[in-house]
C-alpha cells in the first residue's frame, strides 16, 4: 500500500475515532441524562477508609470501589458521560498501542467500547435489579486491568521469571479485579504465544495462566462467602430475580474475548486495500449498530425517570407537564397508556400543588405494562418516594430497608432514610445517615442543610418537603400488611377511618383517593369532611363532578343543595348525550371516540376507565 492510500485509510479512522466518542458523549449527556442520574442515585461512594477497607476485604472489591468512584460523577450526567467516553477511548487506544495494531484497523479496537456502552444503555428497567456495586464502570475498568496485565507481563521474557510473574500477577489480579484479573493473564498468555519467544517462553506463561484461571477462584473461595458457582464470574455484574447469565455476563465475556483476539491479529499481516476499506466501513457500521440496537429507548421508562427526578427536585409543576407531554405525543395512539408509576407521581405532584381537584382527571389514565421481560415492582421503583411524600414514613422506611438489603445502600436510600428519621424525630439515626452523605461530593451540601433541621426540628414545619408531609401525619399509627402493592396500600391507608385530628390537607388527599376509588359512600364521607375542614371558596371541579354524578345516580336531593357550576352541569349533559350516542365500548374505543374535554372528566373516569391494575 502506498503512502497516499495509507493516508486515506488513516484519515477515515482518525476522524471516526474522534467523531464517534464525541457523538456518544453528546447522546449520553443530552438524551440519557435521567438514566445516568438514576444509575448514580442508586449507587453510593464516600471518601472513608473504613468503607474502603470493607471493599478491599473481598476479591474484586477494589474493582467495585473504583466503579463506584466513577459512578458518583454521573450525578452530573455530562461529566459522568465524559469520563465514560474518555475511559472507552482509553481502552481502545491502549489496545491499539499495546498490540501494535495498525491505525488502519484501529476502529476494531473500539468494538469492546461499543459492547460496554450497549451493555449499559440496554439496561432499562434492569438498573432496578442489578445488585453489583459500581456495575456501570466496573467492566471497563476490568478491561483496562486486563490490558495492564499484558503490558506488565510482557516485560519479563525469561520463561521461569515469566511463569512466576504470571502466577503472582494472576492471583493478585483476581483479588483486585475478579474475572478481569483472570482475563489479564489469559490475554497475556495468548500475547506470548504469538510472540517470537522460545518454545518454553511460550508454553510456561500459558501453563501459568491456565493454573491461575483454575486455582485463583478456588484459592480465594476460602476467604469469601460466595458460592463456588460465582467464583469464575466475580466482578461481572449480577442481578436479583435470576436474570439470565447470557443477558448479564455474555456481553462482557465477548468484550474480553475480543481483547484476547487482539494479539492474534498479528498473523494476518498486510491485507489488500479493498479488504482494509471494507473493514473500516464494517467497523463503523458495527460500532454504530451495537449501541443503537441495544439502547433501551422506551418513552414511558424515560418519562418515569424524568418524573422521578422532578419529584427529587421537588419540582411539582414539572411532574404533570412531563406526563402531559408524553400523552400528547401519543394522542393518536389508542394502545398507549401511562404506566402506574406515571399516574401515581402525577397524582402526588398535583396533590402537592393543591391542583388535584381541578386537574386530577385531566390526564389519561391507564396501567401500561413495563416494556421489559424483567418486571420491576412499583414499590422497588417509587415505594419509598410515595410512602414518604404521603406521610407514611414506616412504609417508606420499609422499602428503603428492602432496597438497601438487596442492592446495597445508595445515595437515595440514605437521603430518604435521613428524611424519615427526621420525621420520626430520631436525631441519632438522622445523624448517622448524614455522616455518610457528608463524605460524598454531591450530597454534602444537602446533608449540611438537613443537619440544621436535625438540630432544630421546629424548622421542619416551614421547610420543603416536610411542610407538606407533617400535616399528613395526623393519624394514629396502624399496622398494615403492604404485600398487595404500593398503590393499593396507599389507597387503603387513606381509605381507612378518618383520624380524629385530621388536617385540611389530610382530608383533601383522602377525598382524592376516595374519588379515585369510585366508591360513592366513601366519597360522601370524605367530601363532607373536606368541605368542613377546608371550607373552600369554590369546590374544585372534579369534586363537583363526582358529587353531581353520584347525586344524579342516587337521587339524594343534593343536586339542588350543592352549588354546582354551570360548566359541570353542561359537561355532564354533554357526556351523557355522547355516551348514549356511542353505546357500550371498552376503554380503548372510548379514548378514540370521546373528545378531550369529555374524556378528561370524572364522568368518563367513572364509566370508562376500567380494568386498571394497581401495583
Amino acid at each position, binding site marked *: 500500500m502506498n503512502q497516499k492510500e495509507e493516508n486515506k485509510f488513516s484519515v477515515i479512522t482518525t476522524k471516526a475515532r474522534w467523531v464517534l466518542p464525541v457523538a456518544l458523549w453528546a447522546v449520553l449527556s443530552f438524551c440519557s441524562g435521567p438514566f445516568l442520574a438514576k444509575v448514580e442515585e442508586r449507587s453510593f461512594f464516600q471518601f472513608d477508609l473504613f468503607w474502603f477497607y470493607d471493599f478491599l476485604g473481598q476479591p474484586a472489591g477494589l474493582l467495585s470501589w473504583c466503579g463506584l468512584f466513577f459512578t458518583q460523577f454521573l450525578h452530573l450526567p455530562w461529566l459522568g458521560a465524559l469520563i465514560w467516553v474518555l475511559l472507552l477511548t482509553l481502552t481502545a487506544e491502549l489496545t491499539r498501542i499495546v498490540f501494535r495494531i495498525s491505525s488502519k484497523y484501529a476502529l476494531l479496537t473500539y468494538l469492546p467500547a461499543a459492547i460496554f456502552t450497549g451493555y449499559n444503555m440496554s439496561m432499562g428497567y434492569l438498573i432496578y435489579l442489578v445488585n453489583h456495586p459500581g456495575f456501570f464502570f466496573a467492566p471497563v475498568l476490568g478491561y483496562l486491568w486486563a490490558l495492564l496485565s499484558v503490558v506488565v507481563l510482557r516485560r519479563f521474557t525469561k520463561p521461569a521469571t515469566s511463569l512466576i510473574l504470571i502466577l503472582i500477577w494472576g492471583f493478585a489480579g483476581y483479588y483486585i479485579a475478579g474475572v478481569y484479573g483472570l482475563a489479564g493473564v489469559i490475554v497475556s498468555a495468548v500475547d506470548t504465544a504469538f510472540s517470537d519467544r522460545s518454545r518454553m517462553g511460550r508454553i510456561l506463561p500459558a501453563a501459568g495462566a491456565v493454573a491461575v484461571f483454575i486455582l485463583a477462584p478456588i484459592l480465594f473461595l476460602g476467604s469469601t*462467602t460466595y458460592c463456588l458457582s460465582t467464583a469464575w464470574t466475580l466482578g461481572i455484574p449480577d442481578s436479583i430475580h435470576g*436474570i439470565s447469565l447470557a443477558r448479564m455476563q455474555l456481553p462482557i465475556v465477548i468484550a474480553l474475548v475480543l481483547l484476547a483476539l487482539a494479539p492474534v491479529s498479528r498473523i494476518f499481516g498486510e491485507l489488500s486495500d479493498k479488504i482494509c476499506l471494507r473493514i473500516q466501513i464494517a467497523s463503523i457500521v458495527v460500532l454504530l449498530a451495537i449501541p443503537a440496537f441495544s439502547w433501551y429507548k422506551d418513552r414511558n421508562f424515560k418519562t418515569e425517570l424524568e418524573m422521578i427526578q422532578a419529584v427529587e427536585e421537588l419540582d411539582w409543576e414539572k411532574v404533570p407537564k412531563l406526563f402531559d407531554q408524553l400523552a400528547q405525543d401519543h394522542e393518536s395512539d389508542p394502545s398507549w397508556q401511562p404506566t402506574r408509576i406515571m399516574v401515581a407521581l402525577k397524582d402526588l405532584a398535583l396533590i402537592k400543588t393543591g391542583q388535584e381537584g381541578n386537574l386530577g382527571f385531566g390526564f389519561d389514565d391507564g396501567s401500561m405494562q413495563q416494556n421489559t421481560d424483567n418486571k420491576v415492582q412499583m414499590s422497588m421503583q417509587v415505594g419509598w418516594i410515595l410512602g414518604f411524600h404521603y406521610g407514611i414514613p*414506616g412504609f417508606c422506611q420499609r422499602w428503603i*430497608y428492602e432496597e438497601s438489603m438487596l442492592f446495597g445502600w445508595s445515595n437515595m436510600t440514605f437521603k430518604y432514610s435521613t428524611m424519615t428519621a427526621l420525621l*420520626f424525630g*430520631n436525631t441519632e439515626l438522622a445523624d448517622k445517615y448524614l455522616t455518610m452523605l457528608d463524605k460524598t461530593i454531591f450530597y454534602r451540601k444537602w446533608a449540611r442543610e438537613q443537619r440544621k433541621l436535625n438540630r432544630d426540628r421546629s424548622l421542619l414545619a416551614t421547610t420543603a418537603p416536610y411542610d407538606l408531609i407533617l400535616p399528613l401525619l395526623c393519624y394514629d399509627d396502624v*399496622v398494615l*400488611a403492604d404485600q398487595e402493592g404500593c398503590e393499593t396500600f396507599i389507597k387503603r391507608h387513606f381509605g381507612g377511618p378518618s383520624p380524629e385530628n385530621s388536617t385540611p390537607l389530610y382530608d383533601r388527599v383522602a377525598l382524592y383517593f376516595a374519588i379515585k376509588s369510585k366508591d360513592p359512600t366513601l366519597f360522601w364521607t370524605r367530601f363532607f369532611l373536606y368541605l368542613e375542614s377546608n371550607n373552600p371558596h369554590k369546590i374544585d371541579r372534579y369534586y363537583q363532578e363526582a358529587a353531581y354524578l353520584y347525586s344524579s345516580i342516587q337521587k339524594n336531593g343534593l343536586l339542588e343543595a350543592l352549588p354546582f357550576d354551570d360548566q359541570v352541569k353542561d359537561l355532564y349533559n354533554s357526556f351523557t348525550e355522547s355516551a348514549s350516542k356511542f353505546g357500550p365500548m371498552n376503554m380503548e374505543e372510548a379514548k378514540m371516540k370521546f373528545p378531550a374535554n369529555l374524556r378528561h372528566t370524572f364522568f368518563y373516569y367513572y364509566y370508562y376507565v376500567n380494568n386498571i391494575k394497581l401495583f
Partner: protein
Amino acid sequence: MKHCITISAILALTVSCTGIPKNTVPSDSVPSIFPDYTDVVIPANIAPLNFKIEEKGKKYVTVITGGSERAVISGQKVRIPQRKWEKIKKRGLIGIEVFVMNDKDQWISYRPTSISVSDDEIDPYISYRIIPVAVEAYQELSIRQRNLTDFDEKVVFANTMIQTNADGACINCHSYKDYSTDNMLFHVRQFKGGTVMVLDGKLHKINMKTDSTLSAGVYPSWHPTHEYIALSNNRTHQSVHSASHDKLEVLDDISDLILYDIKTNTVSVIENDSCELENYPNWSADGRKLYYVSYRYEGDYGDKRKNEMFLARETFKFNLYSKSFEPDTKTWGPARLEFDAAARDSSITWPRVSPDGRWLLACISTHGVFPLDQIVSDFIMFDLKNGTYRYVDEINSQYAESFHSWSSNGKWLMFSTRREDGVHTRLYFSHMDENGRFSKPFALPQHDPDFNREFLYAFNIPEFMKEPIHITPRQFASFISSTDAIPAKYESKRGE
C-alpha cells in the same frame, strides 16, 4: 511564612517532649467520647477500647495510664496499640486524660476519667449473626465469631455460600451446649433447609418438623446435663407500622414447645395448647425446670386469624411460666406461672437463667413477643433464690434492649441494644457484682471507633463461647449443600 513558624514554635513549646500538652486550661467536664467507655468495668482479657473524642478541636492528645505504663496517643481517634493495652490493663485501673486544642490554640485538659479492670475474666469468644436492617429480604446473612481479646472476626457461615438467585436461604438461632462449640446448632431455612447440628464435633442436618408438630425447631435451649434440646415451634408473621418508631410488628399466630432428643432423633411435645402461644424455652441451671413465656389467645383459627392478631397486638401480654422436668424419664410437671407480667400491663420475653442458677434475666415491654422491634424493651431480673425481681435500670436505655447472654462464669452479661440510634442493634457488655448489680454497659470494642456509627448492619443473637468454632465456613457450606436433612421422629406423650 514567618507567622507560621512563630505559631509552630509556640505550639511546640506547649507540648512537652513526651507529647503531653503543657500549660493547659482545665475543664470541669469529662470529655465526650464514643463509644462511651468512661467509668466502665471491663474484663482483663478484652481488646483495646478504642474510642473517638467527640469534642470540637484542632488537635487531640490522649494519655492512657495503667500503673507506671502509659500510652500517649494523638489524634481524634484513639487507637490503643494491643501490646501497650495488655500492659496497661494489668494494673486494675486505667486512667484516661484527654487534651483538646481549641480554636484559640489553647490546650483544654478535660477531667480525667477511668476504667476499672475486673478480676473476672470473660469468655474469649462470642458469636452473633450479622443481619441487614430489613423486613423481608435476607440476601445476606452471616453468623460470625469474634475473638474478644483482639479484633479478629471470622465468618462461621453465610447464607450467600449456598443460596442462588432463585433459591434464598435464611440462617438463624445459633446456639451452643455449655459454651462449647463441639456441640452447637443453627437453623437453615428454605433452600437446603434443616437444623445444622454439630454433635461432638461431627456435622448433622436434622429436619425437626414432623407431621404432629407445628414447624421445625426455632428458639433453642440445650439441656445442661442431658442430650436434649428444648425448642419453640413458631409460625411467625410480620407487618409494618405506618408511622411509628416501631418499624415492625412481629408475632406468632401459633407457637408451641418441643423437646428434641439427640440420642434417639425424636421430637416430643412439651406444650401445645392450641390457645396458648408458648415461646422462648430456657432451662434452669440444673436442667430440672424449663422456663418459657406464653400468652393465651382464644381467637379463631380461620384465614383472618393473623390480621385479627395484628389488630389486637397491643393486648398480647406474655407471662413467664415454668415446668418441672425429670431428665431421666422425660416427664414434665404442670405449667406454673412464675411472673404475671400481664397484671403489670407488660409482656415478658427471652428468659435466660444465669449459669449458677440464681438469676433469671428477661426482656419486658409493653406488649408482644418480639421485643427487638419495639421502641422500648427493658431488662427485668429475677433473683430465683428469694423470688424477688427488679428492673435493671443501670443497663436499660431509652431504646430496645433485647437478646442477652450470660458469660460461662455468670459474671458478665452481653446484650443487644439499639441504644445508639434506635435502629441498628449493637452489642454491649456489663459486669455483674455479687449482689446482682450491673456496671455501666460498654460497647463491643472495635478497631475503628466509628465502626458502630458507620456499620449499617445489625448484630443479632450474641452468644458467648469458650472456644472458637473449628469447622470452617466451607465445611459447613459443603455439608449443607450436599446433605439432606434427616427427619426427626415424633415421640408421642405417654397415653397420647
